[in-house]
């Protein structure tokens, strides 16, 4: 496929997005999704498409700003461009009781399907959240305008929802009633997210009911994400989604395979020391880490099992506050490249380092790595 001017512009924008993010505020995160899709909009033939989706999220305590664009080039040569900016502001902690949070969101966006149609929308939403341990609920209302062509229509949406988390599983359920000009419909939807290790699975199922001009039917989507490193993840997603008269997206089916590249994670050191200023970036500062990696597993009455994966190592030692910073040699286990140590470790926050083949003490992946006060890094782990 020959890249046209628009495609190059989208790629340059995506590259800028990733590069620029390093220099902006510490809490700016940027991602670029690059994917290949097969999509079939209702009433149209199926088509292959390549997509580039840069997104940036700026966060500070109580506020989030998201900017997202999407460029789609279909096999027919037609293009689609979408853009969205959404900002959320949460109420200050002192304004409401501890379990309650208010949120105001403004959102504006536009989309253009080349030679077909253009849309824009601007909405504002207010939500009230109540949050407990592992569960929460919200209710909200949205108002705004949306336009297809030249005629703008009023938007009004009322919604409620709830979520619950149990271990690796998170469930949500929501219902909303929307009025867009003469169109009115009710959506009910539930989602499930499962996360284990580097894997993330997301599924959603919903239905549009009581509809006047907004279509009916059941829809759903699934998505699997596999993090390859701290900055790269693969994803596959597919399903069917309904028409969204607010943003102008047309109902369709899709299957997408892609890669998500993200900017480095901002990292803060829990300790501060003047000697740390000007420290060169340490191994693993927001970069992909290959080895070694530590896992801490409960081992019943024997305490915890510290499992270090260090392929190719001849010896692995660990020193930590719970060993009084005495180097302890780990024993090799049957699994290739794995070493273990069984120790009683008290509940709480602990500091540790590992050393491979008598080299430097390093903070392994699997811990929260922070600058220590001695010119190097220490791994911090929370043991339940």
């Amino acid at each position, binding site marked *: 496929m020959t890249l046209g001017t628009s495609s190059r512009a989208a790629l340059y924008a995506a590259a800028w997005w990733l590069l620029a993010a390093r220099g902006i505020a510490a809490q*700016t995160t940027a991602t670029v999704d690059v994917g290949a899709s097969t999509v079939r909009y209702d009433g149209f033939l199926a088509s292959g498409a390549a997509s580039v989706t840069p997104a940036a999220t700026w966060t500070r305590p109580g506020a*989030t700003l998201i900017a997202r664009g999407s460029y789609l080039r279909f096999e027919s040569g037609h293009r689609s461009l979408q853009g969205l900016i959404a900002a*959320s502001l949460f109420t200050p902690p002192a304004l409401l009781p501890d379990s309650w949070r208010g949120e105001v969101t403004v959102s504006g966006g536009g989309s253009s399907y080349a030679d077909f149609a253009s849309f824009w929308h601007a909405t504002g939403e207010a939500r009230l959240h109540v949050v407990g341990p592992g569960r929460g609920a919200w209710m909200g209302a949205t108002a705004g305008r949306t336009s297809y062509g030249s005629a703008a229509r009023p938007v009004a949406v009322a919604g409620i929802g709830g979520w619950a988390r149990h271990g690796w599983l998170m469930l949500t359920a929501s219902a909303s009633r929307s009025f867009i000009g003469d169109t009115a419909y009710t959506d009910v939807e539930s989602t499930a997210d499962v996360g284990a290790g580097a894997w993330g699975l997301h599924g959603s199922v919903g239905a549009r009911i009581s509809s006047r001009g907004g279509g009916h039917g059941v829809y759903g989507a699934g998505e699997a994400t596999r993090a390859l490193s701290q900055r790269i*993840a693969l994803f596959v997603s*597919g399903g069917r989604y309904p028409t969204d008269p607010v943003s102008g997206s047309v109902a369709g089916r899709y299957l997408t395979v892609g890669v998500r590249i993200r900017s480095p*994670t901002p990292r*803060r050191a829990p300790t501060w020391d003047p000697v740390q200023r000007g420290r060169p970036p340490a191994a693993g500062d927001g970069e992909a880490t290959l080895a070694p990696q530590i896992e801490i597993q409960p081992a019943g009455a024997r305490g915890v099992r510290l499992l270090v994966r260090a392929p190719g190592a001849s010896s692995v030692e660990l020193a930590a506050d719970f060993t009084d910073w005495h180097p302890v040699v780990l024993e090799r286990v049957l699994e290739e490249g794995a070493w273990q140590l069984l120790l009683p470790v008290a509940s709480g926050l602990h500091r540790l380092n590992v050393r491979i083949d008598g080299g430097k003490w390093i903070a392994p992946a699997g811990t929260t790595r922070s600058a220590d006060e001695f010119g190097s890094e220490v791994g911090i782990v929370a043991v339940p």
Partner: protein
Amino acid sequence: MMRARRYAILLSLCLVAPFARAAAQGDPRLERLDEATRPIVVGLIDSARAVGLPVNPLVERALEGAIKGAPGTTIASAVRRLAADLGRARDALGPGASPAELDAGAAALRAGAGPDVLTRLRRARGHRPVTMALAVLTDLVARGVPIDTAAKAVLTLAAKARDEDLVDFRRAVERDIAIGAPPAAAASVRVNAAAREMRPGRP
């Protein structure tokens, strides 16, 4: 009244310090420090013990510096700073705080939490230990979550959550960060209106 109190503290330090010094010098772990550094660290540990602070975290911090080959002055300043943080943590958590709570509190303060956050956590947890709540708070900050957001999230959970819930919460945030969520958003309300626009792959 104030003068009498000062005299009493001074007198108690004079009485306790010789015994404390003997105890610290008797700690065989400190023999791993070089001869120039050891008396400085022992002095710092004596002072901490005299005012009732836990000394084990201080010994461990010195040993961490020793194993990493840090200069004696750096080790001494790290121990001094930790002692100060332990004192601030005790002021915030109250005199009944356990050594593990003080250690976790010192780390949270060093991460940027204000003493009021520690006090509110203590109040929210009631008679239950705050060690894990503080550990999760510190860990979130080290992962890049702004301290205000991390504190709000942990305080919200602290009243009713078990330690296991707090650890689950930390894992969920860790996973969200790994697959692309900004740290602050990952630790914030998990279903906010803007975040729902971010699902990958939908054309």
